[in-house]
């Protein structure tokens, strides 16, 4: 299994554009920063249910930061 996984690691290096040691070493925010610079796209979150997950995680949708800000502004108004 270790040999198989080393091939997966090679592919991860291609996709991320980073050596595998750096993939392991980078913090989630460093990796996000790197990928956003590489692709010129902001990172987003998705919901993949029912393909994965058990339906117990924010099943309907995610709340955007704009919506949260709007709600907070409404409270503060």
């Amino acid at each position, binding site marked *: 299994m270790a040999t198989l996984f080393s091939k997966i690691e090679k592919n991860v290096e291609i996709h991320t554009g980073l050596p595998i040691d750096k993939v392991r070493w980078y913090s989630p925010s460093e990796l996000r920063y790197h990928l956003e610079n590489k692709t010129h796209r*902001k*990172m987003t979150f998705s919901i993949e249910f029912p393909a994965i997950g058990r339906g117990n995680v924010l099943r309907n949708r995610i709340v955007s930061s704009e919506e949260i800000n709007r709600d907070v502004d409404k409270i503060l108004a």
Partner: protein
Amino acid sequence: MTEKDIYLFYSERVKVLYSEIEARNNTLPIELLFEIHSAFDHLKRFHVDGEPEEKCADKAFSHLKRGMLDAFKLKLKYHNADYEKLIKQKTDLRLIDSGKFLPQLLEARKNIIQTARTARIAEGQDKIDTAFEKWYELSMLIDEFETCYFDPRKIQWARRQGVFHFSTNFIIGLITGVLASILASIVISKFL
């Protein structure tokens, strides 16, 4: 199993695979993050709530394994979407590599689906090690498939050839039609 084993598994396997999923579309599914969240919560119970280390580590390990299996399934899902896009486009893939491209592509795809089925069956039978082995294999097959068959140069070439063949056939058809109508009018005018 100890708490340290969990961090090692996370660093060696989970983080690597999650990075690939993230790098594909700059998107990270909430479901994957939730598994890390759950694993972290079990580790907390060892330090804060006085639960035995082994029990907490085992439970955290289950969540990380579930997260990895989910990541493999997502990889298959993303691959499937790319494959559908390739197959459904109006490009004659039979033109590539003297006709060898399409049959080889279909064979490779069949292999991917078969391996995924075996992985799912093993997972259903709780043979987790076998399932992981098969998912690793599947991941590798998808990578190979993408390298061999998602080659934009070949697809572009086939598309251009397709347009060329269509145009040539169209012009030949048009000329044949015009000639036939001229011939018919000559024949008709001679007999009338």
